[in-house]
């Protein structure tokens, strides 16, 4: 599955990079990420639980960062699962654009739920991750300003699940066949009522 897109962070590139490089923050941003341990420099080991409806999948894997050019870009490799390039650009207005472009292989029970479902869950996960990172960045920048402790709590699994559900409902009404059903049902109902009334 191809994953690409971009996100604008409301903060300077150095801070975004720093945050991104902090395994604790990254782990908290990815929904279902149970832990992310540092094994060696730029090598992490993580356990991730993804649940889509009744099907769940547990991923355990090594995460390696390569091509690290601080604070511009890095390449994330999840062994056997995929690879993704991340690129940071400083914008003139003080914000930072993060671009990502990657490929992922999904196998096992999760793959059986269908590509469309996985797509929409993946999109939800990414969106949710960025929302969390936005908040984390805000908290970090505020803490930096006042010199106090970082005060930040990641969202719970329930909040994430609600987000996914919302995205999927939104996605469903974009499926032409489902929209057609939403058209057929009232049209046929009206016609049947018309037929019943006229038939009397």
């Amino acid at each position, binding site marked *: 599955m191809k994953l690409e897109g971009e996100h604008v962070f409301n903060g300077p590139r150095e801070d975004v990079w720093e945050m991104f490089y902090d395994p604790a923050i990254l782990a908290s941003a990815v929904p279902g990420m149970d832990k992310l341990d540092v094994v060696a420099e730029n090598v992490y080991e993580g356990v991730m639980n993804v649940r889509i409806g009744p099907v769940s999948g547990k991923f355990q894997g090594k995460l390696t960062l390569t091509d690290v050019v601080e604070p511009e870009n890095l390449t994330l490799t999840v062994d056997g699962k995929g690879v993704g390039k991340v690129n940071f650009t400083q914008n003139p207005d003080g914000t930072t654009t993060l671009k990502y472009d990657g490929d992922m292989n999904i196998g096992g029970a999760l793959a059986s739920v269908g590509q469309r479902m996985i797509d929409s869950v993946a999109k939800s996960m990414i969106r949710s991750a960025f929302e969390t990172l936005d908040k984390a960045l805000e908290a970090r920048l505020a803490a930096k300003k006042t010199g106090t402790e970082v005060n930040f709590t990641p969202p719970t699994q329930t909040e994430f699940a609600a987000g996914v559900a919302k995205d999927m409902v939104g996605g469903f009404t974009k499926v032409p066949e489902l929209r*057609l059903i939403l*058209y*057929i049902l009232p049209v046929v109902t009206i016609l049947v009522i018309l*037929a*019943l009334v006229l038939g009397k």
Partner: protein
Amino acid sequence: MATAAPKAKVMGYLPNDTPPFGQMLLLGLQHVLTMFPATVLAAILMKFPVSTVLTITGLGTVVALVGAKLAMGKYIPLYYGSSFSYIAAVSAVMAAKGVTGAVAPPEVISVATAGFIATGVINIVVGIIIRASGGKEAVDKVLPPVVTGSVAVTIGIGLGAAALQMATGTFSSVFDINALTNLKWITASTITLLAAFILSVYLQGKGFIGMLPILLAAIVGYVVSIPLGLVDFSTFGKEALLRAPQISFPVFNDPLTLTVLVGVGIMAIATIPESTAHLYQISLYVDHLAEEQGKEKYNLSRYIGLNLMLDGLNDLVNGLFGSTAGTNYGENNSLMVITRNYSGPSLITAGIISILLGFIGPLAEAVQSIPTAVSGGLAIYLFGVIGMQGVALMMAEKVNLYDPKQLAIGATVLVIGIGGNIGFSGGFLPIPLFTGVFPYGWPAIATGAVVGILMNLLTLFWKPPMERAAATK
């Protein structure tokens, strides 16, 4: 006409284009003229009132086009006329109900149209299944071309006896050859058949007129029938200039209802490959024009499931208001290709014109006065064409008729369907099982289709050794 317009830039209308009003009216009229012969003929052959069929098929077309636009933001440019695939099944209902006149009484039509509700539902369900299973492959597994092609052959050739009875004026296979006085009748039908043959062969490729051989042949036959005394002018002048078409609603409490639901409903499988083929065809041409005009492609062929759902929706509209089940018309596809006008709004205009035509009394009278001999002459040709299209489908899909599996499935479908439809009264097989569902016997064509599907399913679960060997290689 769009073809006559200056060719300064790439001329033509894409599905979402709206031509100027005057052009749209003309383009719409052209569509109506194109769908008219087949739609009217199907109505006559099924003994449905022509006015109702014109009005409701027009309405069904509008409802389906609007549905496509709302669902996916673009029109699927297809016109939904009445389908020939249901003639055999509906004729059986008419025979069982003892209909003798040219138009069946409303209470009989109400029994038959219940079956169109079933086909509508089947089309919608198959459309959803195709969408959910992610493609046409799943449907091809359950409904392979050898089944759908053979069923189409059955529908066409199974009507062979009916066509000949109409053409000879016998209406029964029991007759006394010395008592026949139908030579005039046979003359009219033979001339009509000959005209249809010559016009369709020699007008081919001659522009718009080349698309109307059946309409022209009917006119030739009609004119010839006048001196032969076959046209009944006494029916003229009885209807008001403007009057509402007869509307009848389906009933589900008749002893025949279950037979109709199965017998008529299952004919949907014959229209599925046809409808899909039309979608592929029009998609190709629409994208070609889009490319020429430097616009975004429509990629309509992706929407196989949606297209079938629209077919089903159109059937529901027709079934609910006493018209015949429909199908999208290849004739109108050809018209669109020739005129390079794929505009959805002009098809909606055509639908509205057709709705209004149903309100014109004298038009219905004129159509209804077409002698049965003329319809019979056309039927020999057109029913045969349905059968030949089934053969064409199998050839196009390269069905291997040397494979005992395909051979056996096709053979069984053909004999049960054709033999049963021609050999037994009303096309009902004398099988005294499930008499609650089938009080008159089992509808032959539907039985043949179901047997074919079951035979194919058996080979899916219990793979023939040759296929297993090929799969493991």
